[in-house]
């Protein structure tokens, strides 16, 4: 890898990944609603239409089922399709091509055909957009055999994972979060891979493990900083890919710390946090020094009301509380903190 990097926004890192992959591989194309509109997809598609033309940068009618199916079908006949859903809530219209077709395809035809498609969905938290414009539905896709699900939290990973997703021979669900779009970070100029299925340790620590992914890494790192000030050293893991999970990295950390807080921007029931909790208790039970803790958004749809919405996304404080509980800080101290932040 070249040493040449520069600061770049998350959304522009995705843009660069697509541009470079389309430059190097004629079979790559981008299709979906709003690819020529900054209003839909932020800066992720900036300049692509001008560079590659409407034959490879295809804006579409609002037809998620057919358009996603078309991306899958094109992949079946040898293209490398990237299909974007500017709000992943609308991806639900495309469950059939994603799950029935793309995810099952390679297996049900005994390996004779494959589907190198990237299904890209953007999570749009906040903005008082309410239930149907805010959902984080990654767990639904991670449940399905045959789908890989990646969720980058940094500009570096956003570019590297998009490149890996495009290169992959299988359907990859690439989920990003608009709250990360203006985040800046160092990004290499050239094409590089961030391997799918590999997490990364963001902070080293011995007292507990905090694992998270995507935008919730921001909340997690904030919480870890606060905990550090109090003398609690958290090991922070960014999963980067949720399917397949980097079990090795995760379990190694839990083995070391004996405590874990799982942070997820989706719902608790049957979700990513449930999966990780099950995995840890199945494989690391003997090393656990405290109960597994989970911090997620509340089990209700996203509200529009500014007061309720603020509460809905209050995550860092909950992480701190959960961590304190399992590293056995004094109960009163916790209560004081809740009152202070509440």
């Amino acid at each position, binding site marked *: 890898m070249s040493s040449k990097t520069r600061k770049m926004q998350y959304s522009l890192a995705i843009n660069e990944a697509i541009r470079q992959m389309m430059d190097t591989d004629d079979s790559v194309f981008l299709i979906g609603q709003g690819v020529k509109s900054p209003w839909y997809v932020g800066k992720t598609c900036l300049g692509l239409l001008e560079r590659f033309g409407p034959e490879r940068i295809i804006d579409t009618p609002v037809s998620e089922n057919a358009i996603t*199916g078309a991306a899958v079908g*094109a992949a079946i006949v040898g293209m490398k399709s990237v299909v974007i859903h500017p709000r992943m809530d609308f991806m639900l219209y495309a469950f059939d091509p994603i799950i029935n077709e793309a995810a099952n395809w*390679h297996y049900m035809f*005994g390996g*004779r*055909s494959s589907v190198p498609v990237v299904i890209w969905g953007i999570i749009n938290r906040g903005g008082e957009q309410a239930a149907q414009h805010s959902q984080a539905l990654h767990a639904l896709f991670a449940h399905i055999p045959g789908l890989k699900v990646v969720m980058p939290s940094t500009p570096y990973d956003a570019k590297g994972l998009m490149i890996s997703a495009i290169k992959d021979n299988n359907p990859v669900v690439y989920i990003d979060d608009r709250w990360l779009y203006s985040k800046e970070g160092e990004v290499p100029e050239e094409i590089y891979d961030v391997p799918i299925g590999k997490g990364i340790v963001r902070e080293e620590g011995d007292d507990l493990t905090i694992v998270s992914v995507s935008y919730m890494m921001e909340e997690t790192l904030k919480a870890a900083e606060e905990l550090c000030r109090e003398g609690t050293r958290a090991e922070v893991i960014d999963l980067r890919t949720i399917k397949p999970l980097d079990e090795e990295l995760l379990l190694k950390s839990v083995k070391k710390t004996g405590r874990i807080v799982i942070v997820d921007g989706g719902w608790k029931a049957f979700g990513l946090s449930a999966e990780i909790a099950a995995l840890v208790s199945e494989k690391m039970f003997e090393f656990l020094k405290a109960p597994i803790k989970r911090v997620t958004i509340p089990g209700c749809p996203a509200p529009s009301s500014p007061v309720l919405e603020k509460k809905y996304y209050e995550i860092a404080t909950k992480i701190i509380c959960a961590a304190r509980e399992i590293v056995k800080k004094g109960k009163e101290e916790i209560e004081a903190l809740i009152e202070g932040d509440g």
Partner: protein
Amino acid sequence: MEKYSRDLLCKLYTMMLRIRLCEESFVEPIVNSDVRCPVHLYSGEEAVAAGVCASLDKKDYIFGTHRSHGHYLAKGGCMKELVAEIYGKKTGSSGGRGGSMHLIDPDRGMMGAAPIVAGTIALALGASLASSIRKDNRVTVSFFGDGATGEGVLYESLNFAALKKLPIIFVCENNLYSTHMSIDEIRPNRDIYKVGEPFGIKSYRCDGNDVLAVYDISKEAVTSCRKGEGPVFLEFLTYRMRGHVGPNDNIQGSRTDIRPKEEVQEWRERDPIVVFEKYLVKNGVFKEDELSRFTKEIENEIMDAYTFTQESPYSDESELENNVFKN
């Protein structure tokens, strides 16, 4: 008559006969429970697959449905692998992972069949989109039944195909029944071909039991697609001689066929193979003994396919979780 070469007529006839005899060979094994995966027989509808696929080149793509044995064979799929797949053998076209409803032969342009009603329409749309991006001059055919006209993705696909002038032929095999429901119970009218018209798509209805008519209209559609004139919608009126699933059931598990006897009889008299045989003999293309020689040859091919299947192994249990992902 002179319009068609003897080769073509022979090809159409033998293909229909291959499909029919192969389909009918499954009846006994299904009744005896030797074949247990759901099998949707194509008997009666052979003229559509044979006629459409004869109008295509090897490089062209087709996508199928739950009832796709005929499409697979007509596009050049290997009969041995078809029979082996239905028996769940490792040598089957999908290695025994798919069964009757998941047939594939990518080298011959049979890109896959799947039973989610209308599910493969958008995949075919994507294949034609790929052709328009690559400018490879291929045509894609999407086969689906009358039942698929109830699914929204058909209309999304028609719209997008027309919008982008994609080289795709939407082929609706209207056999008048979607499982147990007569067409009159699922639509306000029978004019399926008209669904393409609001999108400006050239749309035709044709006798799906007349293989030459099927071939002619398909050839025209293929030419139009290759010229870049956009999609074509073809509705073929046809009838299945067998049940929705299995030999004689409209509802899986029962032994009753809900279709009126007179209607079945009426269509039986229009059996596409019998009709075409009469035509060939009457016009002196083949003598009757030539036709029976074809039958003999195909029967031998079928016997070979069953022998191949019997001698083929099942996948080993250790292979259960292989092929979830491609490496």
